[in-house]
């Protein structure tokens, strides 16, 4: 199975990259771009027959390693 994790800053946490990218896109003429958020994606294979179990597993990886839950949230997809 392929797991796909998206990690992004929690709402309210300053997204310095998003801010800079937004500024740059405006400068290049895309002035209507707004609310840019930059996040991280982690994709990987894992051996598991059962999607529900795999999802729980991947969530445990997020809590333990993949996300910094003090400031970041995450979304998990397994397929």
């Amino acid at each position, binding site marked *: 199975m392929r797991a796909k994790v998206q990690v992004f800053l929690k709402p309210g946490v300053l997204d*310095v*990259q998003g801010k800079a990218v937004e500024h740059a896109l405006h400068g290049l003429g895309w002035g209507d771009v707004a609310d840019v958020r930059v996040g991280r994606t982690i994709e990987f294979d894992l051996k598991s027959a059962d999607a529900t179990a795999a999802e729980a597993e991947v969530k445990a990886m997020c809590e333990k390693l993949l996300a910094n839950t003090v400031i970041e949230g995450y979304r998990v997809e397994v397929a």
Partner: protein
Amino acid sequence: MKAAVVVFPGSNCDRDCKVAIERSTGAHVDMVWHGDSALPQGVDLVVLPGGFSYGDYLRCGAMAALSPVMSDVKAAAERGVAVVGICNGFQILCEAGLLPGALLRNERLKYVCKSVDLAVANAQTRFTAGYAGRREVRMTVGNGEGNFFADDATLDRLEGEGQVAFRYLDNPNGSARDIAGVVNARGNVLGLMPHPDRAFEAELGSADGALLFQSALASA
């Protein structure tokens, strides 16, 4: 002799470069704001300094490569003017397509600041002529994304055409084939991760960087 150092928001070696060029060559150095549309008339050397242009957010050098002044830097390079990108400046030159390849995250994923010994891989370029007869030079590096990457065909070509200017004797960041600095096919654009601007007088631990600026201007 006239040189220009481009200042991007987040550049932090701009003054270092100016001082290094002045002390090692006596040339006049203009500071050029990234938002300007043109370089000063008649420059012989353009330097893109180290630092964290635009915070290195998104990708190192990506936003700086799109700065207004960069179109004139490209035009100058096409005219054959000497252009040097140091550290972040090297990243900007790659992002701007003036040099081949890209700089990836360091192999060990950490910023690394240390003194490095370099082999002068080609002492015939206009930036390294002053090193003729010197096989090793010492400078320092300070980078988090200094891991030079290009596909094998490109690397073979760079090596075959003498476009590798410097190699690390002890690779600090995982760069392909130990490459520390490369020139373009025409030989007038140099990018390197080590800092000649931090090695221009003996008090700083090495004066080897001075020769690079001297060579670049001597050939102008």
